[in-house]
């Protein structure tokens, strides 16, 4: 059953379009993540969906009824949803009162409020904090109070805008644990905006990629991260090797793509002469020094032009007629003695190359 649907939703600020033709269907009980770079329009979209703002064009349907411009029922419908904003605000009152205010505004009884607040504070691990002034809490604790305040009313639909932005890793992990519980145990329908892709991957059933105000792809986390349908999505989800070429040979589904006078082999159902992009994730590239027999269909010899450490990993950029980026562990790089200028052989399996059509 579809709980929330948008049809050609559009919005603009000062005549500058910020959202264009957004068509979304959120199913009941689903966890949907909206990912996209900062400024893509994620917060604007959530505000429209939560009926905080009115869209310039298009329609919003909640539980089958159009609610886009509803004035009278707006608050009633909003009371069936909850919204945790990117920079959560707590009121200068106790943690208990902050969490209870949504229930109070809905006319919930004193006893029921007390028991619901107690339960939700336990859920977010803040059971001991009831009497604390909410303004004295840390960023992570404040975020959990905001989540508790949103959950205590048992919303049918929960919107989360960057729920762990600006939090340290421990607080992030705590917040994610709470959200995972809410998704799995409570089966609450969630729409979550995040630029933290692994988080979207961990928590969401489906992901929508919003770039420059447009939804460019919707799919399962696996589809989004492994099978992006266009270069913008590919770039955003971290496919850093985007090689433009033309299919010059095809043997069953094994295609040979000519890229800058070099060839890349991949599994694809595109035809000879099709202009395509070959997408290779940096983590799918392996490096060797000497010529060796390998099952990898793609082996490119080139000179290392850049080495940059990233935590326990090293990003290695090789010039093999086109720039190719690979990521390996620091230990492997040390054992191979890789330096800028070293000639290496970078290889990848044909199945690790994802091919998308180029329309240019």
């Amino acid at each position, binding site marked *: 059953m579809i709980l929330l649907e948008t049809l050609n939703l559009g919005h603009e600020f000062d005549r500058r379009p910020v959202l264009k033709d957004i068509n979304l269907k959120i199913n009941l009980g689903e966890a949907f993540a909206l990912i996209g770079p900062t400024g893509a329009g994620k917060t604007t979209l959530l505000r429209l969906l939560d009926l*905080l703002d009115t869209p310039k064009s298009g329609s919003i349907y909640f539980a089958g009824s159009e609610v886009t411009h509803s004035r009278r029922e707006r*608050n009633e419908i*909003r009371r069936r949803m909850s*919204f945790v*904003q990117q920079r959560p*605000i707590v*009121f*200068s009152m106790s943690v208990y009162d902050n969490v209870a205010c949504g229930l109070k*505004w809905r006319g919930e009884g004193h006893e029921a409020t007390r028991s619901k607040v107690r339960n939700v504070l336990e859920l977010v691990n803040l059971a001991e904090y009831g009497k604390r002034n909410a303004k004295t809490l840390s960023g992570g604790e404040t975020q959990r109070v905001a989540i508790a305040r949103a959950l205590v009313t048992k919303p049918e639909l929960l919107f989360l805008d960057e729920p762990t932005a600006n939090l340290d890793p421990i607080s992030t992990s705590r917040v994610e644990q709470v959200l995972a519980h809410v998704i799995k145990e409570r089966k609450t329908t969630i729409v979550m905006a995040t630029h933290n892709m692994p988080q979207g991957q961990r928590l969401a059933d489906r992901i929508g990629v919003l770039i420059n105000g447009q939804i460019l792809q919707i799919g399962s986390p696996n589809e989004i991260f492994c099978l992006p349908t266009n270069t913008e999505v590919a770039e955003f989800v971290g496919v850093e090797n985007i090689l433009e070429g033309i299919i010059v040979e095809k043997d069953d589904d094994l295609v040979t793509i000519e890229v800058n006078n070099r060839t890349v082999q991949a599994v694809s159902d595109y035809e000879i002469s099709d202009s395509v992009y070959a997408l290779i994730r940096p983590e799918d590239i392996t490096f060797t020094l000497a010529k060796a027999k390998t099952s990898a269909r793609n082996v490119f010899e080139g000179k290392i032009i850049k080495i940059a450490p990233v935590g326990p990993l090293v990003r290695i950029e090789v010039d093999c007629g086109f720039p190719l980026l690979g990521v390996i562990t620091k230990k492997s790089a040390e054992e191979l003695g890789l330096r800028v200028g070293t000639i290496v052989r970078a290889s990848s399996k044909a199945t690790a190359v994802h091919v998308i059509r180029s329309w240019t």
Partner: protein
Amino acid sequence: MTAIWQGFLKAIELIVSLNPEVLQITARTLAISISSTAIAALICLPLGSLIHFNNFHGKRTLINLIQTFYSVPTVAVGLVVFLIFSRSGPLGFLELLFTPQVMVIGQVILISPIILGLVIAALRGVEQAAYETAIATGASQFQATTIVIREGRYAIYSALILGFGRAISEVGLALMVGGNIRGYTRVMTTAISLETSKGDIVLSIALGIILISIALVINFSLSRLQQR
């Protein structure tokens, strides 16, 4: 210098011995100023919220106008109130001139711009996100407005205290519309003014000490509130 010192000692004696006239004037002064502050608060809180939460043409100009009236001379307000409530004025039939009631009305007019302007500033000081958070949590517009007022409460208390301070310390208005009638409309400021001109500095000093003490309490409360 000796005369002033002796006057000061006698004034302390008047206060300590709970002199009936000193007590009466002090009580009347407090009653009039507290009443005018309470009435001004009842007017300015909803009006300030209305102005803050609604966008309309000329809002900025209206706020500028309100701020201009912060420093309106007390005698100017006194003159307007006098003309309105004098026998030939539009509200002369109420026969309120030279009564404590008209002093309250005058003070309400005097301090309302200050309280109104500072209430608007206090609400503006509360993050817009607080209002939106309340709305997103299911509050009605009225409930969300209430929470914003609650969030800005310390700045609003400051506004009320400043208004009270202006009301209790003004002399021109009280003299013009109250008439400084002994036992009826005489307040601390008018009494100090009159007794000093008569040469009775003992009562003036006693009332002055009380007035300064009230000012000190107001200032102390204000700085405590501003620290929150």
